[in-house]
């Protein structure tokens, strides 16, 4: 059973079974890069030094201007090397694309600007918990625009699209934590949309899954948990906590019990039901004067989390 390797000059740690395969091809191409770079640079520098014009009327001393052998070599050898790299890269790509039979499937949803992960028992969490040494297959979709799921330490990436499923698979080598980045530009918080893969040992994984990976931590009040969720679910990107401060959406300060008007002219009071509806189905009652851009969190916020969010909001006054 291999361990996650240390990072090298070019690459992050090899934390998945396929990382070493990717790095092997990368290293081969890098060697080719070094060799050809040195050849061209040495040739150029040497010729410039050796044949430097020392007087104004100095002329060339050779009219060597064609050679089938030289040209041929420079067509044939690069072509051969390119074909080797092509075949190697394609076969590696197939390994990257096709998940092994029996992979554990986890469902991934991307939206502006948060990830959520859903397990077969229905629980939805915001970091990706996986067991070590077991192939995991992610089945991914977007709620809105293009995103892309990327874990540098695993060397895997796939765009996440709104109208179909895309997949990525990996087998983590050992317990540890690894960064997940969104890597398809998606607007304001594109660079803030990162989460963590938490690789657990087989036993830890089973135990924590049973308990719920991200239930409210022991001893934490619902309101405090709600405040964490406000950041984790990315509400902070569009909703300020400062009185009257408008971002893409209205401020949460004093929101519970606030009266207002929707863009259809309907009057509302922001009680618990209004807030719950706005999280699950934001388009139903958009506040007048604000854009229609809030994504739905249906399926991503469970009842416990909803209670915590409401408890937190009640403290904002």
């Amino acid at each position, binding site marked *: 059973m291999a361990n996650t390797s240390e*990072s090298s*000059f*070019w*690459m992050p740690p090899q934390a998945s079974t396929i990382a070493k395969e*990717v790095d092997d*091809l*990368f290293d081969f*191409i*890098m060697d*080719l*890069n070094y060799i*050809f*770079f040195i050849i*061209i*640079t040495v*040739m*150029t520098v040497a*010729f*410039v030094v050796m*044949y*430097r*014009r020392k007087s*104004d009327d*100095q*002329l*060339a*001393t*050779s009219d060597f*201007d*064609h050679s089938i052998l030289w*040209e041929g070599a*420079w067509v044939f050898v*690069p072509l051969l090397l*390119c*074909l080797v*790299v*092509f075949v*190697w*890269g*394609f076969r590696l*790509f*197939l390994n*990257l694309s096709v998940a092994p039979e029996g992979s554990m499937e986890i469902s991934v949803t991307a939206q502006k600007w948060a990830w959520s992960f859903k397990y077969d028992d229905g629980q939805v969490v915001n970091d990706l918990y996986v067991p070590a040494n077991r192939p995991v297959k992610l089945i991914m979709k977007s709620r809105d*625009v293009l995103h892309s799921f990327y874990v*540098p*330490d695993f060397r895997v990436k*796939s*765009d996440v*699209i*709104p109208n*179909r499923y*895309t997949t990525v698979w990996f087998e983590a080598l050992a317990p540890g934590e690894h960064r997940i980045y969104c*890597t*398809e*530009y*998606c607007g*304001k918080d*594109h*660079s*803030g949309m990162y989460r963590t893969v938490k690789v657990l040992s087989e036993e830890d994984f089973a135990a924590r899954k049973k308990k719920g990976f991200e239930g409210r931590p022991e001893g934490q009040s619902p309101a405090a948990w709600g405040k964490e969720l406000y950041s984790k679910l990315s509400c902070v990107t569009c909703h300020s906590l400062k009185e009257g401060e408008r971002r893409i959406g209205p401020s949460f300060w004093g929101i519970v019990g606030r009266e207002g008007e929707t863009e259809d002219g309907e009057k509302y009071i922001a009680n618990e039901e209004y807030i719950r509806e706005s999280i699950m189905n934001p388009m139903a009652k958009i506040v007048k004067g604000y854009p229609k851009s809030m994504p739905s969190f249906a399926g991503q916020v469970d009842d416990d989390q909803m209670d915590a969010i409401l408890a937190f909001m009640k403290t904002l006054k």
Partner: protein
Amino acid sequence: MSETQADPGYHVSDKKETNYIHASKGLLSWILTVDHKRIGIMYLFTIFATFALGGLMALLVRLELLTPGETIMGPETYNRVFTLHGLVMVFLFIIPGIPAALGNFVLPLMLGAKDVAFPKLNLASFHIYIIGTIMALWTTLDGGVDTGWTFYTPYSSTTNTPVIMMTLSAFVLGFSSIFTGLNFIVTIHKMRAPGLGWERLPLFVWAMYATAVIQVMATPVLGITLLLLIMERVMGVGIFDPALGGDPVLFQHFFWFYSHPAVYIMILPGMGVMSELITTFSRKRIFGYRAIAVSSIAIAVISFLVWGHHMFVSGQSAYAGMVFSFLTFLVAIPSAIKIINWSTTLYKGSISLDSPMLWALPFLILFTIGGLTGIFLGALGTDVHLHDTYFVVAHFHYVMMGGTAMAFFGGIHYWWPKMFGKKYNEFWARVSAVLVFLGFNITFLPQFVMGSRGMPRRYYDYTPDSGYQIFHQISTVGSWVLLLGMLIMLVYLASSLRSGEVAERNPWGARSLEWLTQSPPIEHNFHEIPTVVEGPYEFPLAGANTASEGMDVSGS
């Protein structure tokens, strides 16, 4: 033997007549000119300005990335700044760049012609370019577009920024590109001087021809794609947005079908300039003339077949990925041929390190790095890790800036005496070239490492514990060195215009036909069209019988 490829009996007078700059006066005589040289000069000044604007955006981007968290601007502003950087550099600087600013001026002269085939179309190209530029800049008054220069849907079909005006501006600019391409193709076919067969053409002309073919054939596809995007935004027709029943990956196919060939519109002219600089400043015939000429055409053709390499992780099928990867490796070979042929040309030449050559030699090395790093991206298995990271950003800056921009500046310095009849300060020109070379590498080399270590592109921010900060800091400092080099260039070029030493007809001892004309040329270029008797690079050889009059190979 004669001094150029023209018939030795061609009478070259060194008596200075009224040149094209003084031939007529007043703003209107420039705005309504049909003289290809005046049009080229107007393009040159405008393109310098757009490069400065795009460069300013780059400096702002790099400044923001100096530290984690907000440095000088918030994320929404940052997204608009990097978008404008890309759009200005691609559509306002590099695609028109060499063809419009240098090609317009030099091409008819190189062919021994008095102008291009369609001078009024040429003027129209310029005015359309200006209109498109104004439209693009207009969007900055409206808050600026925040989609990235690639306009991927559904973000671009739903964001609340002035996407319609910006895509309309690109649509308009496309016509400028198409008209220039059309003009050049016809000019090269129909207006060559007697004796100037295809195999006697300077390689710059071959490069312009190949570029023009791509411009004419690929640009309409972009135009239609942008119109479809506008239709979707305005009329809600579901082409690309799944919420309306469309397919976002379809947009990528349409977009890259133009934008991949477009990168060859960007590099081929630079390669053309390279052939001229390497030969003139080695006083030697090019090695492998036919291979270089044919490779330009091969690149133009194969460039249409590789667009899917931008989409390996887009949801495209593995089968499509395989085909595109294979073809991508094929398109690398003609470029490799050019590099080795230019390097080989230096062998036993007489190599001058005058300032134009200080742009050409770095091109050789920097374009090699750019091309070699493309291999990582063309190979499917490594592209998965590297796609959309800073590795890609570094790769394309090495080919577009280390390649095309260097060639552009080299060409400007090379033809400057011909265009303006003035010399520039050689010492400061060398300082500028060295600073730009150093600044460029300091800016972009760290980006390869950042990228392979996972730093994504188009990121406003990174965390302090990510380990990327040191690379960002080095890169930002590099951008300041680049700025210094460019500012120095601006100063000595401006100074040359005001009070530069008078330049002679053929200061570099080159052999193509443009060096027959006076510096600057008279309005109609040639009183009498020369006849061409040999290839463009028939420099005399040391030790051969060179005792003939009229031979002038000195650089004085």
